């Protein structure tokens, strides 16, 4: 289909119709009720449920033990190789998780680790406020991953 190429008629040009139409449109927006801004730190934003934010290792709600089975699939799936899983075998020969290091400074929050995990253990939460003071703070160990990021709450 051919796109339009409107030609302004002489009368429209004389009476500045095109310019005035634009003016009316912008004038009609002059009310605060049409405002689209969220005043961020005061008003918390609405985050989707599936948002891929900071990672978290979930524990079993009944006995508080970790759900991780140390299968290492998340580390293999990660494109940036930012997960390091450490395990040892217990008396029955089953794998038990010892250390888990997740480097969020290299993470691109793609969600492949979450997809790869066979248990509901590794989960990308809705936490996006991840500023830290140093690179060291961005290598999260198992304890930080289980507790989640606890930022300092400012009241003002």
């Amino acid at each position: 289909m051919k796109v339009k190429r409107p030609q302004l008629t002489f009368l429209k040009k004389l009476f500045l119709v095109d310019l005035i139409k634009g003016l009316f449109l912008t004038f009609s927006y002059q009310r605060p009720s049409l405002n689209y801004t969220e005043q961020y730190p005061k008003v918390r934003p609405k985050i989707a449920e599936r948002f891929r934010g900071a990672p978290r290792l979930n524990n079993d709600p009944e006995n508080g033990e970790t759900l991780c089975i140390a299968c290492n699939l998340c580390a293999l799936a990660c494109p940036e190789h930012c997960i390091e899983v450490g395990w040892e075998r217990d008396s029955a020969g089953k794998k038990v998780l010892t250390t888990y290091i997740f480097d969020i400074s290299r993470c691109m929050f793609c969600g492949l680790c979450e997809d790869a995990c066979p248990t509901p253990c590794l989960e990308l939460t809705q936490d996006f406020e991840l500023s830290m003071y140093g690179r060291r703070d961005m290598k999260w160990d198992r304890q930080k991953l289980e507790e989640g990021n606890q930022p300092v709450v400012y009241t003002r």
Partner: protein
Amino acid sequence: MEFAIDYVLIPFIKILVVFLVVSGVVAYLTLAERKVAAFIQVRLGPMRVGPYGLLQPIADGLKLMLKEDIVPSQADKWIFTLAPIITLIPAFIVLAVIPFGPTINILGRPVSLYITDLNIGVLYVLSISSVGILGIILGGWASNSKYPLLGALRSAAQMVSYEVALGFSIMGVLMLAGSLSLVKIVEAQKDAGYWYVFQQPVAFLLFFVCALAETNRAPFDLPEAESELVAGFHTEYSGFRFSLFFLAEYAGMIVASCMAVTLFWGGWLRPFPNVETFLGIPLHFLDLIPPVLWFAAKVVVFLYTYLWFRWTWPRYRYDQLMKVGWQWLLPIAMANVIVTAILVLVLKG
């Protein structure tokens, strides 16, 4: 003693009042620009400093004053400092002739609500505004850098071109009023019984468009448009000197609005200035509002229109800008003068 009060004390107080009020308006005009722009663009504008951002101009002023004073190494230091002052002072000096209201009685003494009534008021305004262009050229030259120089030259050429059409558009009003004094023009509108915009609509539109170009505002703001020359003639300026340029632009806007109101929209007159009734409705209730407030309301409407135009339309390219000024506005202004002259001759004998 009478001499001292009439010719020294009262003018001094008037100058002080006008200066303080206009400085305050200029400062809050910067906030109004941001808020109006925000509302048009479905957002909120400054909200953090003070309730609803009302203390923002104070924060801006403090910031600009406390900034580091940078002068480019190859720049001409004295002219670099002088240029913004040369741009700012004419904008404030012009306010000396603008009539804010009629002569009223304060404490038993007749006080005229304008600083002075120069009998060549219009000529004074036009010539002093032209001095402002010098400041821009000096600013661009003294910066010793290619972008400011180009921006200054373009800005100066644009302002000079639109001055001509501006002068022509005022001539119709002068013919109708018969005087160059701004106070007499307002009183002539009162005698005629209606504002001159109803007799000279084309001249008013021309005047406003030329005023937009004079103050370097959209759609004629290519010389300072960011997308092309970074910031035009004030690229190298920062801190207090930049704030002087910035204030000069807004003061120029206010002066242009005041002139438009005085020349075309009846100054401090109410609608239907000398008329008792309109279609049988008595109009005395309009007298309840003091004339200064009528003047202020009209100026506010014009300032809003300045902001409205900036945030609605795109900007002209430089050659199109010059074409509009010379090929369109000047012939229309000249034709307006001729038609007005003929009609004045025919209708007034």
